[in-house]
């Protein structure tokens, strides 16, 4: 098998995969690690950007081939699946039966195990909270305890720590998920243009109570005077048939170009074009995949950033100072001329997650990509981190390759509880970086 990496291709650290095809292999590998005092890490489909899916030993348990249904009750919408199944594979079966994921990230190529380990959130965080809230049970394999069936009522502490547990509390072999009913695979979409952040916050306050899915794209290359302009998308599941899974049609970027295909010129042109095409538009219907997973159509699009890779910066800022802090972040990025294409703004609601280290908190989340440019990127991130820290916000480990140990430990005070529950044979480069340095 080929070596594996993280989505941002930064840090570059090729991972040796040990593929898992059958559930019983997980325990066997765990024992092997324990017996020779080696460490490893479970790896899903590598859709995390930074180093949280990279093992400190560069040896990962590749879970992706484990993609079977174990049990499915299509009457109740309750499914138990192996952890390597992607969200897309699950939807491919469930949609035809009238069920959708209660929470989905912006890619359907994440695995169920990965979605739990990062306790991912979607555009409906204000309604449904995080992925972990819809998990009824987890089959966990630990190198010290063997197989543990955990749930909100059995081994609850371990269960909660595993939601957003970054793959450190044991290997998730299977999970039971509660799906949500849908009548249609189409999304009713409303699109509203806004010219600045003030307008964004006003629209968001008004529409969050009316729509399940809300997200906004912000043009971060707009002239400084227009910073904060963007497009707000509000969506809901349509209420009329058909309920049909959509074939996954994709175009693959076959090779990594020797230099990044994006530079400030091409990006600015793209962004302007995007905003010219995306004004306010009347309500319309869109297929679920176009609405939730626009980026999945271009397989391995991360390659366009070239051999040096890229980083995503995602933070959440609590409501109080959100408008000011987000404005400052966008202006700083604009002044440094570094940000790429589009930034994503999302509201996080106040629904708590049972997970110990879940990222969302009530506030606004901002995410955008930066081509990796060494020192320049590092310096910019120092300034951004400062703004986030002052506003009481925090960064998302699933996207992170840079945050300081101090920032992490201050923002995620429960980290020590996770460390106490960590499987001694599992360790990621991320965890090493933020807890040991």
């Amino acid at each position, binding site marked *: *098998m080929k070596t594996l990496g993280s989505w941002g291709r930064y840090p570059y650290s090729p991972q040796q995969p040990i593929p898992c095809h059958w559930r019983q292999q997980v325990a066997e590998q765990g024992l092997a690690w324990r017996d020779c005092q080696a460490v490893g890490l479970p790896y899903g489909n590598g859709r995390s950007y930074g180093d949280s899916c990279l093992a400190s030993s560069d040896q990962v348990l590749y879970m992706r081939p484990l993609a079977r249904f174990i049990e499915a009750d299509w009457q109740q919408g309750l499914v138990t699946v192996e952890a390597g199944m992607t969200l897309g594979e699950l939807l491919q*079966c469930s949609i035809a039966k009238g069920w959708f994921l209660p929470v989905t990230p912006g890619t359907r190529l994440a695995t169920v195990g990965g979605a739990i380990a990062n306790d991912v959130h979607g555009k409906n965080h204000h309604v449904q909270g995080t992925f972990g809230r819809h998990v009824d049970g987890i089959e966990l394999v630990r190198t010290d305890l063997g197989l543990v069936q955990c749930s909100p009522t059995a081994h609850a502490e371990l269960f909660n720590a595993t939601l957003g547990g970054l793959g450190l509390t044991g290997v998730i072999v299977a999970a039971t998920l509660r799906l949500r009913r849908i009548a249609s695979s189409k999304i009713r979409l409303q699109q509203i243009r806004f010219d600045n952040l003030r307008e964004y916050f006003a629209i968001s306050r008004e529409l969050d109570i009316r729509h399940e899915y809300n997200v906004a794209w912000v043009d971060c290359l707009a002239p400084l005077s227009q910073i904060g302009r963007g497009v707000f998308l509000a969506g809901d599941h349509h209420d009329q048939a058909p309920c049909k899974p959509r074939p996954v049609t994709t175009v693959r970027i076959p090779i990594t170009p020797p230099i990044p295909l994006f530079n400030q010129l091409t990006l600015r042109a793209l962004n302007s074009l995007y905003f010219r095409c995306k004004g306010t538009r009347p309500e319309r219907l869109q297929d679920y995949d176009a609405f939730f997973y626009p980026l999945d159509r271009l397989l391995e699009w991360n390659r366009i950033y070239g051999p040096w890779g890229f980083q995503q910066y995602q933070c959440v800022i609590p409501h109080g100072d959100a408008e000011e802090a987000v404005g400052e972040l966008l202006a700083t990025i604009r002044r440094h001329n570094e940000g790429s294409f589009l930034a994503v703004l999302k509201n996080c609601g106040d629904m708590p997650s049972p997970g110990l280290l879940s990222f969302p908190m009530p506030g606004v989340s901002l995410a955008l990509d930066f081509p990796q440019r060494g020192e320049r990127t590092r310096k910019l991130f120092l300034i951004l981190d400062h703004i986030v820290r002052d506003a009481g916000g925090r960064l998302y480990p699933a996207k992170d390759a840079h945050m300081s140990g101090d920032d992490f430990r201050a923002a995620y005070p429960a980290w020590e509880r996770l460390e106490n529950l960590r499987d001694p044979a599992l360790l990621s480069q991320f965890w090493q970086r933020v807890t040991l340095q």
Partner: protein
Amino acid sequence: MNNILIIGGTSAIATACARLWAEQHSRFMLVGRNAEKLQQTAADLQARGATEVQTHILDLDDLDGHAAMLERTQQLLQRIDIALVAHGSLPDQPMCERDPDYAVRAFTSNGLNVIALLTRLGNLMEVQGGGSIAVISSVAGERGRPSNYLYGSAKAAVSVFCSGLRARLFKSNVHLLTIKPGFVDTPMTQGLALPGLLLAQPDRVARDILSALQKRRLTLYTPWFWAPIMAVIKSIPEFAFKRLSL
């Protein structure tokens, strides 16, 4: 709805095919040697929409067990619309060179037991007077390479046997598809260092197999680029080929 018999029902390639058939609400008989793996595969297909999944435990090297297995299949499925023969294992080539007993066993596992099975299955389908048999052979059976010529020669035997059987069964309206995959990312190839660009995922291969069955194709190279690759490899004269260490 199809009635489908899969020999080597826990193989990754066969499972990928079965998942597509399950979506079309097929009925299955899965044959394999590992009860636990069969059960896990059956549960998966059931959840994906299969109307019925039966399993039968059999090591295909046990040639005497073939008849009972086929009899039970006929009882349970009545008619077999598609039979997919997918079992196989990659022998340790250096071991084949040292140990003739091992070599013969490896040849049996990948060649002779397929021939034995197809003999009975062919007769059954002939009497039934219709349906398709799909046999997974390999591009490795097209030319002997020093790195795996035992496996290659067993697959060559399977391919030639299939072409003869096809011509015979054709008269009874039974279709036979010989499948020649290149490198596929499955447990069988796990330990090998294969060139990433040529390595296909099982679901890709499965889609090719289903479409070839539908079109009643005779031979399938999957992914398609193996047809030109093999054309080139077959055209190299033996005196030059022997110097290439492939």
